[in-house]
């Protein structure tokens, strides 16, 4: 913070009615902006699978059909993108990460989500368990569109949205923390929007 700086003549619109819902530095959007670093991958559902690998006794794998047969949940959450937009009350459908990890014994303390297109993001294990994270395949009652991460994306709404990796194909359970794609490029390792952890050192 540069103490005392005022933008000459700036009044602002103060058009945020849900201020308590809005983390610092964010503004509300009604749209659903698309952000990604490369072309949208298109993997046929017949070739899609979701795997758990790393520090577990036995790797786990679900085909698309098997994944659809898992118990699913309806999730309504606010989401916050590091590029400053927030969207309130987004409606998702998918499988809780608790369900996926249900029978897994692990000594891991971290996970890295890996994706089609090569994207990765890292999270503490405790941030994807306890009802805080899902693998979502539906948005607003419809199959999740490819541009928004379909067929399935990670959904970790309490962290900046780059942690909610699009086109996710699995989780690697790790004993150590390994910075992912944006986390290696100057973005914050954890990414809590309420503490405005946008960039390294925030």
């Amino acid at each position, binding site marked *: *913070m*540069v*103490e*005392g*700086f*005022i*933008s*000459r*003549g*700036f*009044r*602002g*619109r*103060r*058009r945020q009615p849900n201020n308590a819902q809005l983390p610092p*530095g964010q*503004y*509300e*959007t009604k*749209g659903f*902006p*698309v*952000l*990604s*670093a*490369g*072309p*949208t*991958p298109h993997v046929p559902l017949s070739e899609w699978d979701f795997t758990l690998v790393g520090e577990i006794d036995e790797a786990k794998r679900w085909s698309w059909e098997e994944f659809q047969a898992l118990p699913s949940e309806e999730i309504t959450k606010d989401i916050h993108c590091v*590029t*400053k*937009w927030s969207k309130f009350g987004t409606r998702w459908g998918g499988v809780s990460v608790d369900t996926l990890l249900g029978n897994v014994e692990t000594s891991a303390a971290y996970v890295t989500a890996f994706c089609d*297109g*090569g994207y990765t993001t890292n999270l503490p294990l405790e941030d994807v368990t306890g009802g805080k994270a899902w693998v979502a395949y539906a948005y607003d009652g419809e199959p999740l569109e490819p*541009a928004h991460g379909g067929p399935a994306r990670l959904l970790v709404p309490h962290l900046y949205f780059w942690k909610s990796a699009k086109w996710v194909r699995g989780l690697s359970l790790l004993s150590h923390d390994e910075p992912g*794609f*944006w986390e290696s*490029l*100057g973005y914050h390792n954890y990414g809590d929007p309420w503490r405005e952890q*946008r*960039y*390294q*050192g*925030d």
Partner: protein
Amino acid sequence: MATQPRPAAQPGRLLWRVGEVFEVVEETPTTKSLVLSVPGWEGHKAGQHVDVRLTAEDGYQVQRSYSIASAPEDERLAITVDRIEDGEVSPYLTEDLMAGDGLELRGPIGGYFVWERGLGGPLLLVAGGSGVVPLMAMLRHRAASGSGAPAKLLFSSRSQEEVIYRDELERLAEADEKLEVVHTLTRSQPEGWEGYARRIDEEMLREVAPSPSEEPLTFICGPTPLVEATAAALVELGHDPAGVKTERFGPTGG
């Protein structure tokens, strides 16, 4: 101007700084470049952006991200801002801000959508509207650094009046046989226009883009439909998805 000592415990932390507007340049009827003197600015790479923060007298604040338009070699930092009609920040930046005013910012941010001379070419740059800004930083860096990398810019604008950096792009291309600038004007065209007059599509990319075997370094920036269509068409034409980098913007409150 108040300054804050750099906390030694957090190297690399991006601090807010106050730059001074040196000059405001009108690029198109709705787009202006803000040329800033930023004390202590430690440089950037072409393609990176900054966060801008506005503070009202009662402490109310808003933030937005803007791509850097200037080359790393330039003496001053420039951003180019397109005025969004019902925006909260861009009308202030394009209409209220004047030379001599302060502007609070921090950066540079982003390390993926960047091009440096050492990365070579050929370069394929595809822009829609103000998506040209980070690509212009690349072209300015390419010229200033004496890079001989072949480069093509395919630039979609609604009309000739709305082509950002039109004169400078023409000058750069005239002075450099390895740089080609191709415009498409999607909404209206001047009389006698013989160039493209439609949205970017696969056929246009087949005609303009280097072949996949040349392994171009591709950077696409613009509104989501343009970015999605262009990236998908390039992959369809056989380009390696790993060589295609995208950056997007949308009128989400600007």
